[in-house]
Each structure stands twice: as structure tokens, then as C-alpha cells.
């Protein structure tokens, strides 16, 4: 099944072989870009309709079901609607920045897909510091949110943009801290190397993915929570909540620019989900030796879809967090837990040298205990020390 596994690489080589030799590297890169844009663009369209239908089913109603069989052509209808809408720009808005903001948001996020390994030998660029590239791109896209909010010259937009930036900066810290134990265990920042470090099976059947270790499980949960907040998704979607701030920093955008913002947001979600699959779920590797006949990119797609479903499920279930709750959660709960997770990962790594019979069970108990005690204690401590009731001032 090797040919099916490498089918994208072989197709790329064949297509590039049709071009003259001097432009072959350029053609190879262009093919990768075209392929990524096609796949993730389709994924975006599919995710919008699947999200609405799943949310609908979880809320005991049908989702959109008029436009095609089971409503599957809804994204096309949405796309056409967005394209033919009038593009309204406020009179006092800063026109150049207002135009640039959706572009400045979407372009860096496309760049983030370049380092993810989608299958065996299938990462577009193999960088020595791949994960740092990913996080650097994530932090560069925060300025675009500010551009959007400020260029609209609208107080609600500016307020929404400030809240969004505060949220994104606050949750970047647990995101990076949750990824650090993985770098420790794999001793590399190179993403294909991290996937390779999770290969093999313990006792012949249990995959060595990092999610099956105590620090990996805690890190995975922390990473997913921080990823939800980084993409401004429910329950962390205060910056774009309709009942709070009209549409936050997106208020003054209509038509295709609005669609570009949503594209950027969903692409960010896909990128960070891809990173979660790579870091914790073993990337493109199969969970059992007898399942290895499915191609590697198929396994990546399966794990990816499972995580996207998890995000949609969480959106349907949890209510929105208020801004101060959000920020307290990040700084006072997630960051200490991420640091404790780092110590537990070191403890696991050091105790990996133990060789006596029940070593694995004892290591699990020790590390899980080291994680559970701060978790319970922090939760209790944060709940009890509630600040005094906020002082309201009324219009006299």
C-alpha cells in the first residue's frame, strides 16, 4: 500500500516532471500551495455546514436542509451571498487599513500550514524550528485583529478588538507551555521528528502517542482549551458575541471581507488542530499494527475530523465566558497547571529508567497524583476567594 500512502508525493513529482527543468522547484512549491489551498478551502466549506447541522441536531432541530441533499450545498449559497453583498465601508474609516485587515489576518494563517506533517514525508517545508515558526505566525496574526477593530473608527469595534487581543495574548502562554513537554520528550522542535518519536508500540499493541501518558493527557486538554480560546470559539467567543458587542471587531465589515475573516478564523482552528494531532495524537500514525494498511494521510484526516467534531460539540454545550472570567481562567488556572505539567513530564522522563515489575503503574500513579493535587487545590482556592461584589455606578 505504499503507493497509496505516497500518492500525493508521486502526483506532485509526475506533474513537476512535465515542466522544464529550470522551473521545477518553483512548480513543485506551487503545486503544494495549490493542493493545500484546495484541501483546506473545501474543508472550510464542509466545516461550516457540518457545524450548523451538528449544532442543530444537538439543539434538537434540523440544521440547514433546504439547499441541497441534506443541505450540503449551503456553503455554495453562503459563498454566493457573500460575494454579491454590497461592500460598505464607513465614511470615517481608514480605508487602506480597513481593506488590509482581512488580508493581514488570512495570509499568515495560510503560512502556518506549511510545517504540518500531513502524512509520511508530506510536510511542505521541514524546518529545524518548525514549532517556533508556527507560534510566531500565530502571534503575528494578532495585529490584524487590532487593524480590523481600529480602522473601523467605531467604539464597539475597538473595544471588541482590545478584548480579542487581550484574550489571544493571554491564551498564547498556556498554548506554548502545554506544547513544551512534548518538545522535551521528543528532544526536537522539528514536527516530522516529533511524529517519528511517537512511533512504535509498547507491549506490541499500545501506541506510544504522547496522549497516553499522564503529562500528555493533561497537556492535550490544556492545549485544546487554549486552542479554543486562540481561535475565538465558544465558550471563549466574547470578542464576536452578538449579544455583547454587536459583532465586535467585525462590525463594520460586510460581504466578502466578512467571509475572509471567517475563513481566517476557521483556518486558524484547522492549523491548531493539525498541530494538536501532530504533537499529542501521533500525527499520521495508525493506532494499531494491523490498521497500518490505511494511508497515513487518511489517519491524519480521521484524527483531525474527530478533533473538529470535539470543538463543535464543545461549542454546542458550554455557555460563553465573561471577559474577566476568561482572563482569570488563563492566568490563574491554566498557566500554573501548565507549569506543573512540565514538572510532571520531567518526573515521568526521569522515572523512565525504573525497571522493577510494577514500574509503569507506579509511575502513572505518581505522575497523575502530582497533577491531580494542584488541579483540585487550585480549583478550590480560586472558587473560594471571590472578590467583593463589583461596584455599579448608576446614571444620576
Amino acid at each position, binding site marked *: 500500500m505504499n503507493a497509496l500512502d505516497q500518492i500525493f508525493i508521486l502526483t506532485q513529482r509526475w506533474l513537476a516532471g512535465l515542466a522544464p527543468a529550470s522551473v521545477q522547484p518553483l512548480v513543485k512549491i506551487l503545486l503544494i500551495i495549490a493542493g493545500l489551498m484546495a484541501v483546506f478551502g473545501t474543508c472550510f466549506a464542509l466545516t461550516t455546514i457540518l457545524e450548523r447541522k451538528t449544532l442543530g441536531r444537538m439543539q434538537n432541530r434540523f440544521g440547514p436542509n433546504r439547499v441541497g441533499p441534506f443541505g450540503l450545498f449551503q456553503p455554495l449559497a453562503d459563498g454566493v451571498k457573500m460575494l454579491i453583498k454590497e461592500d460598505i465601508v464607513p465614511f470615517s474609516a481608514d480605508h487602506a487599513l480597513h481593506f488590509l485587515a482581512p488580508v493581514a489576518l488570512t495570509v499568515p494563517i495560510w503560512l502556518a500550514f506549511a510545517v504540518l506533517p500531513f502524512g509520511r514525508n508530506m510536510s511542505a517545508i521541514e524546518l529545524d524550528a518548525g514549532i517556533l515558526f508556527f507560534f510566531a505566525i500565530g502571534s503575528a496574526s494578532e*495585529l490584524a485583529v487590532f487593524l480590523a477593530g481600529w480602522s473601523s473608527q467605531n467604539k464597539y469595534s475597538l473595544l471588541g478588538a482590545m478584548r480579542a487581543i487581550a484574550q489571544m495574548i493571554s491564551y*498564547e502562554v498556556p498554548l506554548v507551555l502545554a506544547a513544551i513537554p512534548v518538545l522535551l520528550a521528543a528532544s526536537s522542535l522539528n514536527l516530522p521528528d516529533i511524529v517519528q518519536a511517537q512511533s512504535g508500540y509498547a507491549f506490541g499493541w499500545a501506541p506510544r502517542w504522547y496522549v497516553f501518558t499522564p503529562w500528555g493527557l493533561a497537556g492535550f486538554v490544556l492545549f485544546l482549551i487554549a486552542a479554543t480560546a486562540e481561535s475565538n470559539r465558544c465558550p471563549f467567543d466574547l470578542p464576536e458575541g452578538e449579544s455583547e458587542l454587536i459583532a465586535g471587531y467585525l462590525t463594520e465589515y460586510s460581504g466578502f471581507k466578512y467571509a475572509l475573516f471567517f475563513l481566517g478564523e476557521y483556518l486558524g482552528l484547522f492549523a491548531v488542530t493539525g498541530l494538536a494531532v501532530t504533537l499529542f495524537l501521533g500525527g499520521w500514525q495508525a493506532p494499531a499494527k494491523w490498521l497500518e494498511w490505511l494511508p497515513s494521510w487518511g489517519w491524519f484526516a480521521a484524527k483531525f475530523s474527530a478533533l473538529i467534531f470535539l470543538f463543535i460539540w464543545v461549542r454546542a454545550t458550554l455557555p460563553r465566558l465573561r471577559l474577566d472570567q476568561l482572563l482569570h481562567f488563563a492566568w490563574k488556572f491554566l498557566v500554573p497547571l501548565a507549569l506543573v505539567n512540565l514538572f510532571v513530564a520531567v518526573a515521568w522522563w526521569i522515572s523512565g529508567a525504573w525497571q522493577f515489575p510494577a514500574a509503569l503503574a507506579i509511575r502513572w500513579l505518581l505522575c497523575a497524583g502530582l497533577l491531580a493535587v494542584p488541579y483540585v487545590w487550585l480549583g478550590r482556592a480560586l472558587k473560594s476567594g471571590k472578590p467583593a461584589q463589583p461596584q455599579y455606578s448608576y446614571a444620576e
Partner: protein
Amino acid sequence: MLNEIAFYLAAAMTLAFALAAMTLRHLVHCALCAAAAFAGLAVIYLQLHAEFVGFAQLMVYVGAIAILIVFAVLLTRGEEIRPDSNQSSPSWMTGVAVAILVLGGITIPVFTSPSLQRLPPAAAVAPVKIIGQELMTRYVLPLELVGVLLTAALLGAVVIAMREESEVKRQIRPPAPERAEPEEATSLR
């Protein structure tokens, strides 16, 4: 060939944005142009094969310092209420003249020095593993000191920019005689 185009493009972009950052009227535009200049510099670092430094520059300068500057501009918005006709300090011509002298003083040795014309050595690599090892062996003392410095700077910045408690209370709580009204409202909750 691609290397050359990348360098000249990135250099032109960086210089253009840096010049714009120092000459535009509106402070937010200056801050955003400066962020673009920092990004251009990150591209140049990548072109020099210093990948870790390039990504660190993006993460720290564009992702943190530029946002800090933008927040500070928004929090100090006095300029917009009474628009300045003159953005430059009274002695700006002297400043620009000294800047040109400094430029001359640096570039003339660069052009005339014979030792700078040599060919580049074999490709220099800075693998992250070696950076990590160096940080933990040869540069461990600077690393710890920078950690302490960053903590001190963070705490200092928060303390300096924090509002005094009495100042806040004076602004949001009305004085004593109107105490009855808020209590009435709270009982409805």
C-alpha cells in the same frame, strides 16, 4: 538568484516601512509601519540562515512589542483631541544632520575597508539543539540574569502603570449621601 531577490525586496521593504514609521503623522500608523519593518527584518534574518532568531524576532517584536506600543498609543490619546500642526521637535534639523553624519561615519569605513570584501564561508547553521546546549552550558548565567531582568521589568511595568486604588474609588463611587439607592437596587437581584 532567488536569494538576491529575497534580500533586496526585504531590505527595500524594511527601509521603506522604517522611514514611514518615523515620519507619519498618526501614531497608530507609525506603530503599524514599525511592526512591518520588524517583520521585514525577520525575513532578512531567515535569509541569513539564522532561523531561530528570525522566529524569535517575529514572536517578540511583532507579536508583543508592536502590540504593546499600539496599546500605549491608544491609552495616551491626547494628540487626537487637539491635532498638532507640528509633529517635530524644534531642533529636528540638527537631529537629522547628526543622523546623516552617523550614517556617513558608518558607511564610509564599510566601503573603503578591504577586509570586508572577502567571500562568504561555507553555510553557517544555527541548529536549535546547539543553541539550547550553549544556553545551558556557556550562557547559563546570562540566561538566568535575563530571566530575573524580565521578571523585574514585568513587575515594575505593572507597578508603574497601575492606577492607585483611591483614584479609582473616587471616580466610580458617588460620595456618601447617595448610599440608599445602590442598596435598593441590589435587593432586587
